[in-house]
């Protein structure tokens, strides 16, 4: 013990860089979040609970979380597949596919929202096909699901790709020399090596989806208790100037966000300790 808070170093710029970092971090991120927490404290835990503990709010929170969970699950499976194909195989158009994976990251959420709605509405290219078999996609929970899959798509792939790139071929060869066929090697040797990164990607995808607004708001239908997402509730409260209620729901969502962050960090700590890498 007795490690100093900061090691003295001849490297210049400590004061300036630390100053800028902490100042901007406080002004832009910490103080606004603090304002939310202060507002909530002012409102009182009891009142917060009372606001959140209404059917409409629970429904919205559950909806956001449940659909985000399934979307992240889909992205987990598809993302690992995508990472494998992009790293291990060579085929025409591979670079385009690789770049396309980043589109949900670079595209404005509102643009994604209206584009997906145009596709999956009953008169849209895919929506019309779905209508033939009696399946309503847009303005239902399916629409929300697809939008959430879209926004979370890059996370698993991008976290898993570097790990696939670093897989030591000799480990695969070792598995073969020990008599395992390719499927056995994939399941028992390769997939476990990808698990920590895949889980991290899953949690990131989930965190992103739970708070998503722009991509979902157009395709959702926004019917309370059925297709109303939690962020929309906050917006509605603000439009009616119910700042306390908005803050209450906002804090509930913040708690969920922090839980996600914690989960991600725990995964990485566990993985580092057990396997020696992340």
């Amino acid at each position, binding site marked *: 013990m007795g490690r100093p808070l900061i090691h003295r170093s001849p490297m210049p710029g400590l004061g300036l860089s630390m100053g800028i970092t902490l100042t901007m971090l406080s002004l832009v991120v910490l103080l606004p979040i603090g304002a939310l927490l202060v507002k909530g404290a002012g409102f009182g835990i009891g009142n917060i609970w009372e606001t959140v503990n209404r059917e409409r709010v629970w429904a919205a929170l559950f909806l956001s979380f449940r659909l985000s969970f399934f979307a992240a699950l889909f992205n987990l499976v598809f993302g690992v597949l995508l990472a494998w194909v992009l790293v291990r195989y060579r085929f025409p158009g591979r670079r385009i596919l690789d770049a396309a994976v980043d589109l949900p990251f670079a595209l404005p959420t509102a643009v994604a929202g209206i584009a997906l709605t145009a596709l999956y509405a009953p008169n849209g290219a895919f929506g019309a096909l779905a209508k033939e078999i009696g399946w309503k996609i847009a303005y239902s929970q399916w629409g929300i699901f697809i939008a959430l899959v879209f926004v979370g798509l890059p996370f698993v792939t991008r976290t898993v790709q570097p790990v696939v790139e670093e897989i*030591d071929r*000799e*480990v695969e*060869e*070792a*598995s*073969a*020399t*020990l*008599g*395992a*066929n390719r499927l*056995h090697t994939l399941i*028992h*040797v390769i997939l*476990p*090596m990808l*698990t920590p990164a895949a889980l991290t990607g899953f949690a990131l995808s989930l965190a992103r989806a739970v708070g998503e607004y722009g991509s979902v708001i157009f395709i959702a239908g926004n019917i309370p208790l059925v297709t109303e997402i939690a962020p929309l509730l906050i917006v509605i409260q603000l439009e009616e100037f119910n700042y306390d209620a908005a803050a209450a729901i906002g804090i509930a969502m913040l708690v969920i966000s922090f839980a996600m962050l914690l989960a991600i960090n725990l995964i990485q700590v566990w993985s580092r300790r*057990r*396997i*020696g*890498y992340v």
Partner: protein
Amino acid sequence: MHIEIDEISKEFGTTAALHPVSLAIPSGALVALLGPSGSGKTTLLRILGGLEFPSSGRVRFDGQDATGLSVQDRRAGFVFQSYALFRHMTVFENIAYGLKARPRATRPARAEIARRVGKLLDLIQLPDIGARFPSQLSGGQRQRVALARALAIEPRMLLLDEPFGALDAKVRKELRQGLRDIHDETGLTTVFVTHDQEEAMELADLVVVMSMGRIEQIGKPADIRARPATPFVRSFISA
């Protein structure tokens, strides 16, 4: 198991890693493939193990053509230069891997697998590390686990790629003796690759000196020292 290498050659694109080489390895011998980097020794070893496919020539095990035999079917225990242990599995699970990977028909019962792993841990003189992960082991311990893992599948031969390369001098000496002991105890035909001539001379029954994809000389260590066949051998051995 008697190994016959018959005019094996290997080209990577336009580079010839191995010019046609022939070699007969008697059953139960401990053989060193000795040479500098680029001599083709590792390529030859990998061809024996089925990890590379020869451009021409044949490999025979006990007289039967094994050139087309898949890696899985070859039952060649292979120890990689980097050991290639499965980092997410314990030492026990690593060693048991080959046995568990067998199809149900030939897979031993769980208790039997545990028994065999225990015996192997005793053989490599590390009876207590079964529950540890590779990241918690030293280099020398990892090498021995890799050896035990290869032995677990009851191989017909043992192939080792620079088995002592990454270790410091003291550990090397101990492991050399360990390998000799294991070889004597199991009686397996063993082939190892090295660039260290002292190691080859000390350990092997038969030394194959290679350079630039060709075999320069084959013989017992004493014979090679006494009568080097080419100038290359003479300078390499005395280095």
